[in-house]
C-alpha cells in the first residue's frame, strides 16, 4: 500500500532523514516511533509532499506519490500533530469547505463522526480549545473515508474519554481495511493498536518489528538491591542496564527468568523486584544517545 524507498531529506546541511525504506501492507496499522527530532515529522511531510525529498521515492498502490497526483491524494487522510485551521470559519463551515474538495458525498460519514466526537458545529474555530480543534482535525482526516491515514501524534491534546473514542474509530478503520501510518512517541498507544512498529532515531531507521512478535519476547524488568551485585558475572549480551548505584542495579533481562535466577543465587540479596517492563522501557536503549 505504502512503500518508501531510500528516502533522504536534508534541510540544507542538516540531516532530517537518511536512507529510510519502509513497506507498509494494505490494512496494516504501522507505528512510527522515535524521540523528538528523530525525523518522524520529516518523514510524514515527505509522504504528503509538504516538503521536497532530497532523494528517494514514495509509492502508494504502486503509483509514485507526487504533489499533484489528485487520485492518490483523494485517498489520503492526514491528521497533523498541531491542527491549524481557518479561524474565521465555524466548525460547520470548515467541514463544508473540506468536503468541497472531494467528488463523493461524504455528508453521512461527516455527521457520524461529528456525533461520535461530540463537536459543536456552530462554534467558531478561534473559540475552540486545543482538544476540540484536535477532534475537528480527526473528523477532517476521516470524513472522506481515506484508504491511507497518516496520523501525527493523534492523541495529544485529547482527554482520556476522547482518546477512547479515537481508538474506537481506529478499530473501525482497521475493520474496514484502512492502512494507518501512526506516528507517536507514546509506545503504549502503538502497542495497543499497531500491527508493526518502526523505530527511528537521529534520522535513521533503527528497527522494524511486528508488535505480536515483540509481545512474545520474555522481557523482565529486574530491580536488584544488593551490596554484592558487582560480584555477579551477568550475561551482558542479554541485559539492558537502566539504573545503577553501589547498592542496586535495575536492568531489562531478555531471556527466560529462570536462567537469571541461577546467577543471582551466588550473592546475598536485600531485595529483588521482577516486573514486566513497559514498551518504553524495552526501547529505552534505542533512544539513548550513542
Amino acid at each position, binding site marked *: 500500500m505504502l512503500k518508501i524507498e531510500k528516502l533522504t531529506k536534508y534541510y540544507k546541511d542538516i540531516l532530517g532523514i537518511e536512507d529510510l525504506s519502509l513497506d507498509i501492507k494494505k490494512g496494516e496499522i504501522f507505528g512510527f516511533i522515535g524521540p523528538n527530532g528523530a525525523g518522524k515529522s520529516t518523514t510524514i511531510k515527505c509522504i*504528503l509532499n509538504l*516538503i521536497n525529498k532530497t532523494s528517494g521515492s514514495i509509492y502508494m498502490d504502486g503509483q509514485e506519490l507526487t*504533489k499533484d497526483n*489528485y487520485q492518490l491524494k483523494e485517498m489520503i487522510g492526514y491528521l497533523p500533530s498541531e491542527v*491549524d485551521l*481557518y479561524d474565521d470559519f465555524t466548525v460547520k463551515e470548515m467541514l463544508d469547505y473540506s468536503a468541497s474538495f472531494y467528488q463523493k458525498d461524504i455528508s453521512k460519514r461527516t455527521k457520524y463522526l461529528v456525533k461520535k466526537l461530540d463537536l459543536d458545529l456552530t462554534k467558531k474555530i478561534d473559540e475552540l480549545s486545543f482538544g476540540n480543534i484536535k477532534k475537528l482535525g480527526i473528523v477532517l482526516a476521516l470524513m472522506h473515508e481515506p484508504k491511507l491515514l497518516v496520523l501525527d501524534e493523534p492523541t495529544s491534546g485529547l482527554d482520556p474519554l476522547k482518546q477512547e473514542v479515537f481508538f474506537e474509530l481506529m478499530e473501525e478503520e482497521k475493520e474496514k481495511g484502512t492502512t494507518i501510518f501512526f506516528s507517536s512517541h507514546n509506545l503504549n498507544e502503538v502497542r495497543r493498536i499497531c500491527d508493526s512498529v518502526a523505530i527511528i532515531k537521529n534520522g535513521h531507521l533503527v528497527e522494524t518489528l511486528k508488535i505480536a512478535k515483540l509481545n512474545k519476547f520474555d522481557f523482565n524488568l529486574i530491580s536488584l538491591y544488593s551490596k554484592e551485585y558487582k560480584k555477579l558475572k551477568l550475561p551482558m549480551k542479554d541485559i539492558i542496564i537502566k539504573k545503577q548505584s553501589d547498592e542496586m542495579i535495575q536492568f531489562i533481562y531478555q531471556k527466560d527468568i529462570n536462567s537469571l535466577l541461577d546467577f543471582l543465587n551466588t550473592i546475598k540479596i536485600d531485595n529483588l523486584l521482577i516486573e514486566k517492563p513497559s514498551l518504553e522501557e524495552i526501547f529505552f536503549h534505542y533512544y539513548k544517545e550513542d
Partner: protein
Amino acid sequence: MLKRELKINRRGFFIWAGIIVVMFVVVFLVYPSIAKSEKDMMDLVAAFPKELLEVFNMDIINIGTAFGWIATEGYMMVMIMGGCYFAIMGSTIILKEEDEGTISFLYTKPISRNQILDSKLLCGLIYIILFNMVIGLTSFIGLSLSGPFEFKDWLLISIAPLFLHLFFFTLSLLLSIYYKKTRKSMMISIGVVIGTYIIQILSTMTDSLKFLKYFSPYEYINARDIVLNHQLNYSNILILSMMTVIILIGLYDAYNKKELNA
C-alpha cells in the same frame, strides 16, 4: 476555494477602494470652489519648476479642471495606493496561509499547487478589476457632474492602472515565495511600489538619470500619452504585460518547487 479567497479579501478591498473613493468624492465636492479661482491656481502651478510639473504631468494639462486633477494627482493616487494595496495582497495571499499553518490543509487536499495558485491569482485579478471599476465609476460620476469631458480619455485613465496593479500583485506574489514571514515580504513589496515611483520621479527630473525610467513600471502607463495623444502607448502596455507574464511563469515554477517553511 475562490469563493473563500474572495470572502477573506473583501474587507481589505472595501477599505482601500473606500479610501480612494472618499478622496475622489471630497475633491469633486471642493472642485467648484477651486474652479472659480482657476487663474490663481494656474499662477501658483506656473511657479513650480518645469521638471516637477513634468513629473505630475501638470505641464500638459490644466489642473484647475476636474479632469486635469483626475489625470494628474488622482491618477498618481490610484497608481500608488492601488499599487500598495495589491502589493500587500500579493505578498500575503499565500504567505499568510504558510505563516498560520493552514497551507498544509490545502496541500493535503486532492488539488494541485497550480490550482491553489490559480485561485489566488484569480481572486487578485477580480479585485484589481473591481477596484479600477469602482474608482472609474466614481470619477465618471464626478466628471459628469463637473461639466463636459472626453469619454475616451476617462476610459483610458481608468483602465491603465489595472496593468500596473496586476504587475505589482504578481511581482509581490513571486517575491513572497522567497520569504518566510508575511511582515517582511509585505515591507519589501511596498518598498518596490514606492521605490519604483521614486525612480520614475528621479528619471523625469534629472536628464542624466533618464535611462532609469525603463526600470519603473509607472513609465509604461504614463498618463502623458493619454493626455497628449488620447490613447495608451500600446507598445509600453505590451512590454508591461509581457513582464507580468514572465513573472507569472516564474511564479508557477517557483511555487511548484517551494517547500513548506520548516
